């Protein structure tokens, strides 16, 4: 009688080895350098790709299984949220503007991250990082899709959610996150990994994700919270990939250190500038606050990031010099950013407003060194003027930083009453930047940033009007033409929250849900 011998099941480690190693071959018809043309031009030297260790040891078959389970749960919650009018459970319709910022400013970047990791996976000659990049690439497109699905429910009821993809390519403030990712994607695969894999996903991700997802939880947005939970386990893997990647580069060759350090310096600063948008969201846009931007910075950057850099010190990595001014900036940037959106609120696809007295007191308590001294008088003046029917909308385009593309709103380190101006010259042309950090980035690669698509300059060149527009006709209204080109629904998507259609609809619908008359 034949014995039915059970085949021995592979252990996790063996399975990982079989499914992530030995999958490639040395090409014979074409030299390897031609098959992997991007592997060397950045100057990073790799001697042994097999030294790549993925601490998660995730294989593709397990990946599909886990992700499918998570997504079944997510879509069940999203369905329930939609069917039960979950949008009426949020704290206040002002909260929706934080979601609009997320959908227009962050979700499209998940899609770019998907493309970027797919490209990095294609371009690395080592199979270990290729598999890891593949999984992250799939994660990122899932995140883009699930975010769009989670948020699409709001599009049925509220303004400003209708055309995020079109807006990303055009709108002045969306050029800030867009240019960040374009900059990374147009670099080589190693710089991409430092830019997105390390600086963004490891150093800064908690400052992006935690505020939005906790903000959603505090403000009754179950759809976004559920998405956040679903993405969280992926984010942990992304952080690990980013850290593994930087350690791998540093261990492979000592010549890699100065290149990696330069990238960390650049991308930490670029990331911090993008996070100004998150800072104002936390301090101004959430009706129910989670914590202040300053507190988030202290926990997630100063403490966690400090421990990380202490760990990397053994490889010779130093804390980027430009970060020294952040301990001062954390007291200012959220107020400066919100003041900017308030005055350019005629050209934003979300609503803005001035904080009420109770909210100003919260800001004073959270920012005892700065809020009353530098910002309260300005905000009170604006609020009083708005009540008199003289709401402030700036009528002239602002000057932008050539690198981060944020208007030149940041103040001089050590002097919060004076704007910070930096100027460089390259091939006879002047370039202006908002900070030492952005100026160093410009001066290191001027030929790259000289091509920046700066929204203000593009408007003045006449490139931001709908096709067929004649700007020379009598009575031409350039702002209306630009908003038309942005696909903004002028009068509904933009302007103050007070008097908006969102405000009126939310009040009416919630009234129907909670009252009998």
């Amino acid at each position, binding site marked *: 009688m034949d014995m039915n011998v059970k085949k021995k099941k592979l252990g996790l480690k063996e399975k990982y080895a079989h499914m992530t190693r030995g999958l490639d071959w040395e090409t014979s018809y074409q030299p390897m350098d031609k098959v992997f*043309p*991007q592997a060397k*031009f*950045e100057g990073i030297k790799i001697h042994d790709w097999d030294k790549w260790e993925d601490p998660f040891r995730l294989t593709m078959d397990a990946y599909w299984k886990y992700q499918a389970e998570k997504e079944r749960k997510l879509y069940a919650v999203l369905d329930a949220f939609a069917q039960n009018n979950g949008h009426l459970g949020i704290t206040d319709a002002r909260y929706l503007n934080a979601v609009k910022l997320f959908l227009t400013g962050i979700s499209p970047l998940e899609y770019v991250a998907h493309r970027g990791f797919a490209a990095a996976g294609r371009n690395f000659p080592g199979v270990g990082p290729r598999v890891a990049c593949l999984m992250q690439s799939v994660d990122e497109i899932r995140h883009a899709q699930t975010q769009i699905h989670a948020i699409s429910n709001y599009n049925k009821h509220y303004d400003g959610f209708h055309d995020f993809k079109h807006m990303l390519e055009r709108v002045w403030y969306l050029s800030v996150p867009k240019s960040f990712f374009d900059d990374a994607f147009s670099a*080589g695969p190693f710089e991409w990994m430092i830019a997105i894999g390390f600086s963004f996903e490891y150093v800064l991700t908690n400052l992006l994700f935690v505020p939005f997802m906790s903000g959603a939880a505090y403000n009754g947005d179950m759809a976004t919270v559920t998405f956040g939970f679903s993405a969280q386990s992926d984010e942990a893997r992304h952080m690990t990939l980013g850290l593994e990647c930087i350690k791998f580069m540093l261990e492979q060759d000592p010549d890699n250190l100065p290149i990696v350090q330069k990238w960390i310096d650049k991308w930490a600063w670029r990331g911090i500038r993008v996070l100004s948008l998150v800072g104002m969201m936390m301090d101004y846009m959430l009706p129910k606050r989670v914590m202040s931007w300053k507190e988030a910075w202290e926990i997630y950057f100063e403490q966690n990031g400090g421990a990380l850099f202490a760990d990397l010190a053994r490889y010779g990595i130093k804390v980027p010099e430009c970060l020294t001014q952040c301990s001062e900036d954390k007291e200012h940037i959220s107020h*400066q950013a919100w*003041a900017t959106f308030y*005055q*350019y609120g005629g050209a934003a696809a979300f609503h803005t407003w001035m904080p009420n007295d109770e909210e100003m007191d919260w800001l004073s308590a959270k920012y005892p060194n700065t809020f009353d001294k*530098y*910002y*309260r*008088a*300005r905000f009170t*003046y*604006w609020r009083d003027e708005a009540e008199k029917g003289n709401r*402030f909308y*700036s*009528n*002239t*385009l*602002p*000057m*932008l930083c050539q690198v981060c593309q944020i*208007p*030149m*709103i940041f*103040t001089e380190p050590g*002097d919060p*009453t*004076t*704007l*910070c*101006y*930096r*100027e*460089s*010259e*390259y*091939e006879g*042309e*002047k*370039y*202006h930047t908002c900070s030492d950090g952005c*100026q160093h980035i410009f*001066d*290191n*690669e*001027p*030929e*790259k940033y*000289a*091509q920046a*698509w*700066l929204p*203000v*300059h593009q408007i*003045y*060149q*006449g490139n931001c009007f709908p096709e067929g527009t004649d700007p020379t006709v009598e009575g031409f209204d350039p702002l209306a033409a630009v908003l038309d080109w942005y696909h903004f629904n002028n009068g509904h998507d933009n302007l103050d929250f007070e008097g908006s259609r969102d405000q009126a609809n939310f009040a009416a619908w919630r009234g129907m849900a909670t009252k009998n008359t």
Partner: protein
Amino acid sequence: MTVAPTDKKETNMAVQALKEYKFPPADAQEKFHGAQLLYVGWDDHLMFCAPFAYCLPPNTPFSELCQKFMPHSFGYHPDWKSVDFSKVTWLKSGQPWQPDMSKTLAELGLKHKDMLRFQTPGLKGIDGSCS
């Protein structure tokens, strides 16, 4: 605190690239249909979150900038009505600069993308907060 412009150091090509990396600047003056960019910021008045960007023909008289364009942009501020242009001091790229109101931008040597700041002694914004 005034900021000195950076040293004009020789910049070699720094971008690491697979091929020759040479592209025209996106904002060369010829793309502005005969006009040039000029940035103007008002010191101690951070109610205007950033300096303004103007796109003006080089033959624009400086007086027109001060009497037509700037009042349109800065006029919302309660300090604006107290601005006395005979007492205003100017900085160009952070250095003291003296304009002649009767001359044009070109005659004053203002180039594409020049940066001006003006200071109005005695005016310190809302409640003296430099707002």
